[in-house]
């Protein structure tokens, strides 16, 4: 197979991405005349916003990753009933629509949440408010601690069983084993995990929008939104967006430099239990951490389900506005997921053909381009597109199209990350055979890739679907009466304190994303086994 032919699809997609991003970027540049960063520094508010962005991300990362270490450690050596389910839930918090998670947290820690009601019963008042830094940290820990724990669990599980046997045999105590055996293996993964979590918190939009917001707890991301949506100050909005882009770019480079992500093998949960010298105190210690993590993750999700079935249920589901939001959300999620999947596969077809002939560097570059959204957060791109198209056409008629494009771009890194290894492996195995049989193009994709690696392909699609389903950052700027999606609708309900209706919408959003996610995977994977 000539590599020229295989280079084409990826290059075309890469061209589209570049065009889209540079369009947004140039619009931002045009709207911030002089691009005067000194303005940002001299303005105490923006200085505060920048500092707060770093401060909250730093604290969130410290708490999430710091607490994830003992949780991952405890999970690595214990097996118990429901462990698999707990790990599945841990994986769900990252793809869970942010506002659903936020709603669940509000239902427990909020001013009229479960805890406050319980305390009220004893005539006590809630000693903290969930709005502001507290809530932002709580939500970020809720979303990222399970994610970090899962990432840290993998290196621990990859320790050879002989290492555990040796530790028992040599009588290495718990603390010494952690220090000498487990910590060195965690440490390799830590910079990567910290970097990821920091980036996620730094660019977190919906959480801060729902729980922060006051001038005291505003991040750059939110300040962009407020400048454009409320103050109509396009210039500041553009300047802040560029500022955010520079910071994210710098962070990404630093993270790339300091963390060599250890290649993670697919989670092989060995059937053989890990031997270690157990003791009562060790059991208590592990129980403490596992139940604390479960207490963090499970109740908010339960509350979403319990609260969702309330008196407002009928009123909400008979509202035509609600159904139009459902329709828009499905449209956005399905289209964005398809575009992301096709784009990702085309990029990977190109990058793997380059890898096979030794052009590693070039292949890395094009895959990196697919992940460009990590440097230019969704809101920044939307802001650019918003400014670009504002004068040309009626923005709100195009709203959904733009949201689809931005969401597809946001899902692309996940598609590439999920499929890069399987696509490369299958090419290494069968490329020569395929070309000797003259298989190419779509029929080859269908007969080889689709048949062989359908599971990761479907997984990439469902992740993209769920992410787009729950995303608020792209729609926030463009949403109008006609083009509301479920997350935006939920946000409006939360903003106007219609908690009962918000509960119903949360439940729907949870069902649509997580349940559909599980369903797609189940059907496709089952079919795969039958064939």
């Amino acid at each position, binding site marked *: 197979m000539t590599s020229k032919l295989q280079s084409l699809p990826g290059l075309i997609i890469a061209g589209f991405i570049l065009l889209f991003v540079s369009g947004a970027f140039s619009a931002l540049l045009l709207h911030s005349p002089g691009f005067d960063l000194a303005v940002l520094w001299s303005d105490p508010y923006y200085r505060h916003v920048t500092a707060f962005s770093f401060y909250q991300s730093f604290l969130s990362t410290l708490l999430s990753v710091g607490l994830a270490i003992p949780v991952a450690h405890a999970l690595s050596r214990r097996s118990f009933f429901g462990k698999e389910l707990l790990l599945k839930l841990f994986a769900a918090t990252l793809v869970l629509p942010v506002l659903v998670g936020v709603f669940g947290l509000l239902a427990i820690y909020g001013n009229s949440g479960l805890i406050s009601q319980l305390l009220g019963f004893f005539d006590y008042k809630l000693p903290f408010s969930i709005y502001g830094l507290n809530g932002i940290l709580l939500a970020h820990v809720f979303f990222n601690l399970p994610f970090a724990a899962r990432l840290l669990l993998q290196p621990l599980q990859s320790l*050879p*069983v*002989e*290492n555990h*046997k*040796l530790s*028992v*045999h*040599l*009588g*290495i*105590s718990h603390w*010494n084993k952690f220090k*000498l*055996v487990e910590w*060195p*293996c965690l440490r390799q993964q830590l910079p990567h995990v910290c970097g990821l979590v920091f980036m996620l918190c730094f660019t977190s939009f919906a959480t801060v929008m729902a729980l922060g917001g006051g001038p005291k707890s505003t991040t750059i991301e939110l300040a962009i939104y407020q400048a454009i949506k409320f103050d109509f100050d396009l210039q500041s909005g553009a300047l802040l967006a560029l500022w955010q882009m520079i910071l994210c770019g710098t962070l990404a480079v630093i993270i790339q430099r300091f963390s060599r992500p250890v290649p993670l093998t697919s989670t092989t949960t060995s059937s053989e239990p890990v*031997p270690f*010298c157990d003791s009562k105190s060790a059991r208590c210690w592990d129980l403490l951490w596992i139940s604390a993590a479960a207490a963090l993750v499970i109740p908010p999700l339960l509350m979403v389900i319990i609260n969702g079935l309330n008196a407002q249920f009928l009123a909400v589901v008979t509202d035509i506005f609600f159904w139009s939001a459902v329709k828009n959300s499905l449209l956005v999620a399905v289209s964005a997921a398809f575009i992301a999947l096709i784009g990702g596969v085309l990029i990977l077809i190109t990058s793997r053909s380059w890898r096979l002939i030794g052009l590693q560097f070039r292949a890395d570059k094009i895959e990196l381009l697919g992940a460009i959204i990590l440097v230019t957060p969704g809101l920044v791109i939307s802001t650019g597109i918003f400014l670009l198209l504002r004068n040309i056409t009626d923005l709100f008629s195009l709203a959904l199209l733009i949201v689809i494009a931005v969401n597809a771009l946001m899902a692309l890194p996940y598609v590439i990350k999920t499929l890069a290894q399987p696509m490369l492996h299958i090419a290494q195995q069968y490329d020569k055979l395929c070309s000797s049989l003259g298989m190419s193009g779509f029929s080859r994709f269908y007969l080889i890739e689709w048949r062989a690696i359908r599971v990761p392909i479907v997984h990439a699609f469902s992740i993209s679907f769920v992410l787009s389903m729950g995303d608020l950052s792209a729609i926030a700027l463009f949403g109008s009466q006609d083009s509301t999606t479920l997350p935006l609708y939920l946000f409006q309900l939360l903003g106007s304190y219609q908690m009962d209706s918000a509960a119903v919408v949360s439940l729907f959003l949870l069902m649509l994303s997580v349940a559909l996610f599980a369903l797609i995977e189940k059907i496709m994977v089952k079919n795969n086994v039958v064939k």
Partner: protein
Amino acid sequence: MIKFCSVKYQYQQEQFNFDIDIGTGNIVAVLGASGAGKSTLLNLAAGFINPLSGDIQIAGKSVLDVQPHRRPLAMLFQENNLFAHLNVADNIGLGLDPGLKLTRDQKAKVADICRQVGIEKLLPRLPQQLSGGQKQRVALARCFVQNKPLLLLDEPFSALDPVLREEMLTIVKKLAGKHKVTVLMVTHHISDALNAASHYLFVEQGKISSAGEINNLNAENPNPSLRHFVQAGL
């Protein structure tokens, strides 16, 4: 030296039942097909798994209630005998103090044993900078600094080439003789057994079906499966 008294164990569908008494100073080759229960025998002795019933005695005392690290034995696995992120000196040092706080005497002991197995130049290296044979030498050195009367070898040399394997067995034989150590070594190679062992035992479907002195390990053995095993291996 080590005695299995009707030791019963079950893993999933497989049942194991061991009964054997091994004399002090013997070097016993443990033979048998894959999955017959050779490693299970060693894991029971080492205390990584516990029998359902029966008793295991080492030097006349039951070790069932003894923590693995307090049992008077040292052990070597087929692979991953070394912690990948610790250098050779630390990996050996762990055999003397599990917290790695070594006295000057202990450090001298490490250096001494390293000379005996010929790895004194490798002390600062990490396992990834060693060859397969060097890694197992380091692991063997750790076993000998532990200074235990019983040594369990779970196929540690089977991945090495024949020349290296013979070299390693010679070291084991020499050191075992010098320190009066009893050795139980699992192996697939009849030649290893004939070269190094004084006795053999043959494990078949979770039981020891034949045992005796090494000169009985030949194609005329009364046990038909063992005869077959020997013929295939020669």
